[in-house]
């Protein structure tokens, strides 16, 4: 149940958990009853009834909005396709651009979603964790460029750049958790949120102080420039690299959380911190670990971003961070495969959407509305699936 529907009721929530506790006490042998079971007392009844059986005016309005949006999208798409301004090649191009952009969003989104899964907080400083890596690694790449190593040993030097970027982001994420969030772990929810925003500004301006207010441009890597042909499809080499590297990293991360002991400990902390602690899991260490893994993913995403767009500056994290957060919500926050899916979905919508939906409606300069489309999609998904595409994966206790 989305938090918004719980109303102003810290009290109610309290009641409910007591109700559930009662339910659990009384029905030990039976599986836990669904939320809104018949044990609910009269005053919490309306709130706790299953969503399907009630139809509030809000729902009707939301569904109408959703239906109108879908109708508009369909109409626009059909009109665009009927006009035939774009050939199949163009659509393939749009898709590849979207995939490349989306995989970067997905990698950043990983950090948001994992931290939310464990701490139930939005780490708004994650966009600065993302910025710190590639901005620092720029100096390494510029050095390699000057010394000519980037030309002769592109793989080795890029591996170094990746390493530096990931190490920096990991370190920043670790310190961020240690200094800004750990002392506030028991504080009310809004406190770490404000701290996160403060930490975000702090980091931005620290890096502005360190590296200057202007921007830097990554050197061009000759081996990654230019198009290549995969059968009939023309792709740019670096896009291929970005998509594959991101896919590989995400797969590794997913396997790590699912298959390893450490991953299991991590998941247990996200499920229930107290129980995990009782089972001998070092909760503090696991939380640090979560931040560091998210940081490493963001650092890698940062270098991929720099390969694609070349420019780095102290404010570069803000927009990708916002988009990645959107991607995490879109996919279902707290859910790792959801974040991947959300990121790629968002990248595709941004790339294809303006041409597909808006061109047919006769809207001029549709790419100015790229962000509007992306967020409309978010609204649309949340109307029909309030918990995101794959759903929030939270322990019931904390939802």
């Amino acid at each position, binding site marked *: 149940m989305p938090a918004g529907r719980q109303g102003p009721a810290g009290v109610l929530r309290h009641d409910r958990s007591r109700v559930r506790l009662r339910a659990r006490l009384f029905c030990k042998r039976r599986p836990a009853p669904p939320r809104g079971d018949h044990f609910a007392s009269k005053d919490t009844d309306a709130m706790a009834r299953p969503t399907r059986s009630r139809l509030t005016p809000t729902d009707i309005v939301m569904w109408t909005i959703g239906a109108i949006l879908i109708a508009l999208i369909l109409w626009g798409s059909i009109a665009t396709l009927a006009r035939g301004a774009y*050939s199949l090649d163009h659509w393939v191009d749009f898709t590849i651009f979207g995939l490349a952009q989306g995989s970067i969003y997905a990698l950043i989104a990983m950090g948001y979603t994992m931290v939310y899964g464990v701490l139930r907080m939005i780490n708004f400083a994650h966009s600065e964790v993302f910025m710190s890596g590639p901005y620092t690694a720029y100096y390494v790449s510029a050095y390699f460029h000057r010394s000519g190593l980037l030309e002769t040993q592109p793989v080795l030097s890029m591996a170094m750049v990746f390493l530096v970027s990931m190490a920096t982001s990991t370190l920043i994420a670790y310190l961020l958790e240690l200094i800004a969030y750990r002392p506030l772990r028991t504080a009310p929810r809004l406190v770490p949120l404000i701290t996160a925003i403060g930490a975000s500004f702090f980091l931005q301006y620290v890096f502005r102080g360190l590296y200057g207010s202007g921007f830097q441009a990554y050197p061009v890597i000759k081996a990654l420039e230019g198009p290549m042909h995969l059968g009939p499809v023309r792709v740019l080499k670096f896009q291929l690299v970005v998509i594959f590297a991101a896919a590989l990293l995400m797969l590794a991360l997913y396997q790590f959380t699912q298959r390893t002991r450490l991953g299991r400990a991590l998941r247990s902390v996200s499920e229930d911190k107290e129980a995990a602690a009782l089972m001998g899991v070092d909760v503090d260490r696991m939380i640090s670990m979560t931040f560091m893994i998210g940081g490493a993913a963001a650092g890698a995403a940062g270098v991929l971003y720099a390969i694609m767009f070349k420019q780095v500056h102290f*404010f570069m994290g803000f927009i990708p961070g916002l988009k990645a957060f959107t991607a995490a919500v879109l996919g279902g926050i707290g859910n790792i495969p959801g974040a991947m899916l959300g990121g790629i979905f968002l990248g595709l919508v941004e790339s294809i959407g303006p041409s597909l939906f808006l061109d047919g409606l006769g809207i*001029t300069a549709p790419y100015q509305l790229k962000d509007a489309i992306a967020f409309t999609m978010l609204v649309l998904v949340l109307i029909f699936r309030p918990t995101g595409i794959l759903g929030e994966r939270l322990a019931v206790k904390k939802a």
Partner: protein
Amino acid sequence: MTRRFALVVALVVLAGFTVAGLAQAAPPKDPIGVVTIKKGQPIHIAYWMVVAGPDASLGTDTKRGVEIAIQDQGGKLLGHPIKLSGQDEGCNAEGGQAAATKIASDPTVVAAIGSNCSSAARPGAPILWKAGIPTVSPSNTAPYLTDPKRGPEYDGYLRTAHNDKVQGAVAAQFAIKKLGVKTAATIHDGSVYAEQLQAVFAEEFKKLGGTITSQEAVAPTDTDMRPVLTKIATQKPQFIYYPIFIAAAGHITRQVKEVAGLEQTYLMSADGSFSPDFYKAAGEAAVGMFHSSPDFSAFAAGYKGFLDKHQKKYGEKPIAPFHAHGYDAALMVFKAIEKVAVKEGETLYIPRKALRDALYATKGLKGLTGTLTCDPYGDCADPRIAVYQQTAENIKKLVNPESPFWKPY
């Protein structure tokens, strides 16, 4: 009792002195207000320019122009030192509003120089004028700001930069007459500057017999331009005009060659990205592209001396095109203050409305950019716009090209 008497006497004496003092000073009357500058106090001029962030080179460049103008005055005007304070306008509407509000709240500010970006001037200039502070912009070029229909809230606004009605037309003439292209697409970033500039370009281009295939827009913070460029490529224009700022223009320049169908397209941007920072952002992809910008070779004779001072003071060549306009803006302000300031003993009075009128009355002022004469709407420039082409040489050295590629005059 005696105590109260003493108090009354003291008050009367004090009042008497005050009246006497006022009578002696007799400050000039002004419908808006008078700035009083006592002995030894500075004449306070504020700049609002973009001095941080990705477009900082534009603001730093004009700020240096103003600083050299102050240095040429010997740091003093009418026996008072000149104080220059500043705000960052961020090259956007919110930044312009914040910077203007901050300057307007300081009653010692006599005049302002700025903004750099037209988007910042639009909300900012009225705020300053409401506080009686006239502002001279060294680099706003959007036609709207000096349009006869702009409204009385812009009465305190003037500029030494050219109006984009000139720059957009030069770009269109260049495309048709020199390059001989027939089709063009434009991209703007939603800023007042870019939107109006590309509109002027498109109008002139059509008037000269060309076809505009599409007029696209991006956000200034966008990084992935490939989709919008792919959309443009479906109509195969021969020429793309994107008069936007450094960061976004850099992304477009780099990505345009990666899009199928645009490999041979001519690229042209404008003075907003005519800067070494842009060559850093765009890299070698910028080789061969064109920029319209003020023609430095047509500047007044004093420009050479200015460049020497610039090199000496900052250890580099100017980093954007508007340093000379900054110098001229400061010069205009100094001349106008000299004209209207009233000196009573050691105290200087500067009437605000009279200062604004004196600025608008600027006529035949010999500046670095040419001879400045203000029209009734605040356009004071002597515009000479030329087209420059980027070569591998100057991109590598991160400097602006030396001489124009093409001149319309």
